[in-house]
Every structure is written in C-alpha cells, then in structure tokens.
C-alpha cells in the first residue's frame, strides 16, 4: 500500500515539479480554449450548411455530410499527424506560404496550432451533429411561422431556429468540450510540452509518475465541475417540462 502510494503520490516530486506541471497545464487550457471556440463555431457552420434547402444546394449538403462522416471516423491522433506532417512538408517545399504551413501566430509554436487545427476539424464534426440534433428538435411550426412572415430561410435560421437549437444543446456541447479538453493531450506526440508531456518528462527523469498524477488531478479540477454543470443544466431544462409531477 505504501509502495503504491509513494509511486503515484510522491509529494516531494509533486512539489518540486508543481510549477512545470502547472505551466504545461496552462498550455492545455490554451489549446482547449482556442480549439473549443473554433470547433463550436465551425460545428455550427457545418450544421447550417448541411440543412440548406433546395436542390441547387445539394452539393453543399453532400460535402458537409461527407466531411462530418470522414472526420468523425478518423482517430484524432491520425488527423493531427496528417496535419502536422502535411502542412510542415508542404511549407518546406514552398507549396504553401510558410506562415500557414509552419504557423507562429501570437508567438505560439507550430505544434500548438497543428493541435488547434486538428481539434477544430475533428470536434467541429462532432459538434455539427449535436447542433443538427438541436436544429431538428425545434418544432417545424417555428420555421413555418418565420417563413410565413416573409423571412428567408437564412433569416429564419439565424433569428428563430438556431437561437432555440443552441439553448437546447448547450449540455451536450459542454460534454464534447470536456472530451476535446482531454484530447489536447494528443498534441504531446508532436513533442509539444503540454501537461502530459511535462509529466512524461518528469517520469523519465525520476522514474516516478507522480507528476503525471498531478496532471490528472489538474484535469479533474476542471472536468468534474464542468460535468456537474452539465448535469445541473439538464436538470434545469427538464424541470421546465416535468413541472407538477411529484
């Protein structure tokens, strides 16, 4: 028991490397924030594209569906490696501008941005499906009422359908965000020193995984309150419909 405890919870190691682990986790947070915001936006765009009306826009719908199917079906690790490998190579051959192939925006290194792109592409696809469920859950009469007032399909989506859909899907979107946050750790394979990579480095130095434990705890400090918030939001929505039934 004591051996177990000393292996995973060596407080002296945790204390010594706390600053490094925290610095790594700060990158994790930044990856999550950039990736999260962009994935939320990209997902919404995809879901709206996939719901465009009329036969002339069928190619757009098909492309959107194909994209969503593909990106949901490929492991994010693979997407990440394809992006990092591909963009870097293309830029070194001058096939694409260096600022895009090896991005250094806001002074953040290129693995960070490869991670953000992979998170956006992958989780955009997941979130598009969540938004779609929300859009489809808005009663048909809402679209009819909006159109009967002379709104175009786009106006009806923007002012009537999407605002209602988003409200309905905030809990599942938050769930996806939690998953996204955990998947930021994949960027460590590019040698990017986010929290997992820091833990791994400390492990190689000390042969003790306590820094990894510390990283796990930092994740939990964020993800558990988020999960509780999801539960609370769902309960709040439910109570609106279940009012009066004991």
């Amino acid at each position, binding site marked *: 028991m004591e051996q177990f405890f000393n292996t995973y919870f060596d407080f002296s190691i945790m204390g010594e490397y706390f600053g490094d682990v925290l610095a790594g986790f700060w990158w994790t947070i930044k990856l999550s924030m950039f990736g999260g915001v962009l994935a939320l936006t990209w997902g919404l765009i995809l879901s709206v594209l996939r719901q465009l009306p009329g036969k002339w826009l069928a190619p757009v719908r098909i492309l959107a569906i194909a994209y969503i199917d593909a990106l949901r079906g490929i492991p994010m690790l693979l997407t990440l490696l394809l992006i990092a490998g591909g963009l870097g190579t293309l830029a070194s051959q001058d096939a694409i501008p260096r600022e895009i192939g090896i991005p250094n925006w806001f002074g953040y290194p290129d693995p960070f941005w490869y991670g953000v792109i992979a998170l956006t592409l992958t989780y955009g696809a997941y979130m598009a499906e969540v938004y779609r469920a929300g859009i489809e859950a808005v009663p048909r*009469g809402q679209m*009819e*009422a909006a*159109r*009967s*007032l002379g709104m175009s399909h786009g106006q009806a989506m923007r002012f*009537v359908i999407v*605002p*209602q859909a988003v409200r309905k899907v905030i809990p599942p979107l938050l769930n996806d965000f939690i998953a996204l946050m955990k998947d930021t750790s994949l960027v460590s394979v590019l040698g990017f020193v986010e929290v997992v990579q820091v833990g791994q480095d400390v492990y190689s130095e000390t042969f003790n995984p306590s820094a990894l434990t510390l990283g796990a705890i930092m994740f939990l400090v964020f993800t558990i309150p988020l999960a509780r918030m999801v539960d609370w939001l769902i309960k709040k929505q439910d109570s609106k419909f279940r009012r009066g039934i004991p």
Partner: protein
Amino acid sequence: MSETILKVTDLQKSYGQLDVLAGIDFELAKGEVVCVIGPSGSGKSTLLRCMNMLELPDGGRIELHGNEVFGEGKPKNLDVLRREVGMVFQQFNLFPHMSAKGNVKIAQEKVRNRKKKACDERSIELLTEVGLEEKIDEYPDRMSGGQQQRVAIARALAMDPEVMLFDEVTSALDPELVKGVLDVMRNLADKGMTMVCVTHEMGFAREVGDRVIFMDGGVIVEEGKPDDVLGNPQQERTQRFLGLVLEH
C-alpha cells in the same frame, strides 16, 4: 364586390395516391371574409397552406393582385406573396425565446427593414389593439393559449398584410379563451381586413363571414352566403356534415 386580391385556379395537391386538393377554383375580393368549413381531411387546411406556399401545390395557378405567384408547378415571387399574406396557426407557433413584443417586432425589423423605434411603437400599438398591453414584455410560456394566439395575430398584422389566413386558430384553445380570439378577428373584419378562416366555429362563420365554403374530399362542394350554406344547404354532403356539427 370590389377588386379581386387573390385568385386560385384549378389548384391541385396530392400526397402519393391521395388527392388532397382536386381542382380548387376560388376568388377573394378586397375586404371579404371567407370561412372555410368541412370535415377533417377535406383539404381545407392544405388549401390555406398552399395559398402561402407552406405546401407546394402540384398544379394550378395562384395570382395575387393579378401577378402570378404560383404557376406551371413553380412558385414565383415567393417573398412578395409571403409579405402580403399573413398567417395564423392552430398551434400559435410563437417564438418561445422572444417576448410578446419581440415576436411582433422581429419580422418588421428584418423583413420590412423598419427603424427600431418604429418597430417598437407599432408592436406596442398592435399588442394593445389585441388587448395585451399588460403582457408586452411577457414570454410565451407565461401566457395562456388565448393570449398567445392574440400575440400571433398581432405578429402577422405587423407586416401590414393584404390578406390574413387563419388556420383553425381556436381549435387548440380552452373553450373560455375562444371568445377573446374571435373578438379580435371580428374587430379585424369590421375594419375591412380581407380574411380566409378555416374554422369549426359555425357561429363565427355565420355572423362574420361574407361567404362560407364547404369543402369535402379535396373539392369545394358548396359555397355561398353564410345563411344559405349553413341555414339551408343544398348538397347532401353539406347537410350531413352540418347535421353532425350542429346537433351535439
């Protein structure tokens, strides 16, 4: 009667094998109030929804002020049609994320491009007109069905439509709330609004309607003055329907 606003010629619509509208001819004059009655499945709601292109007809013609808005199987000038024709639904279909005022305001702002202040004033004026000056900032889920339906009427009126379509607007209401909605409609009719009402309120049809149309099986079986159609129907199908509706 005066000029024709809406003219429907040989309108057809079918769902698979079922002919919901089997050739409807129908004209609507300015200021006229037409009540459409008939058993469920007779096509009366579909007719109304086709007039606003919420359902696409399969054939026939619809003209608004002499301009073709549907013909040769295609809608034309859809935006003009929808702007000129207001619609009120059985299930209200208010936007739940907007207050009463927001509901009445949104299309004025986004479709008619009116200034914010003008929209506000018009919304308050209309909500007052339908007797909801107390509920201007209330959200739909905190209003009764009757109040919601009156907001829906105000919302359609805010576009200053030439024609108002009412699709069984009191059918989803508790009995004691029906009168408030019918009073609003009666008021509108008195002010000269052109209206088509699909309804089961025979009293309303008789009192407010200029003309009553009885539909069954996708065709107009009988039409005429309310007293004639409701009081002295000539067709056997009309008699049977009225017998079932009036004697209970």
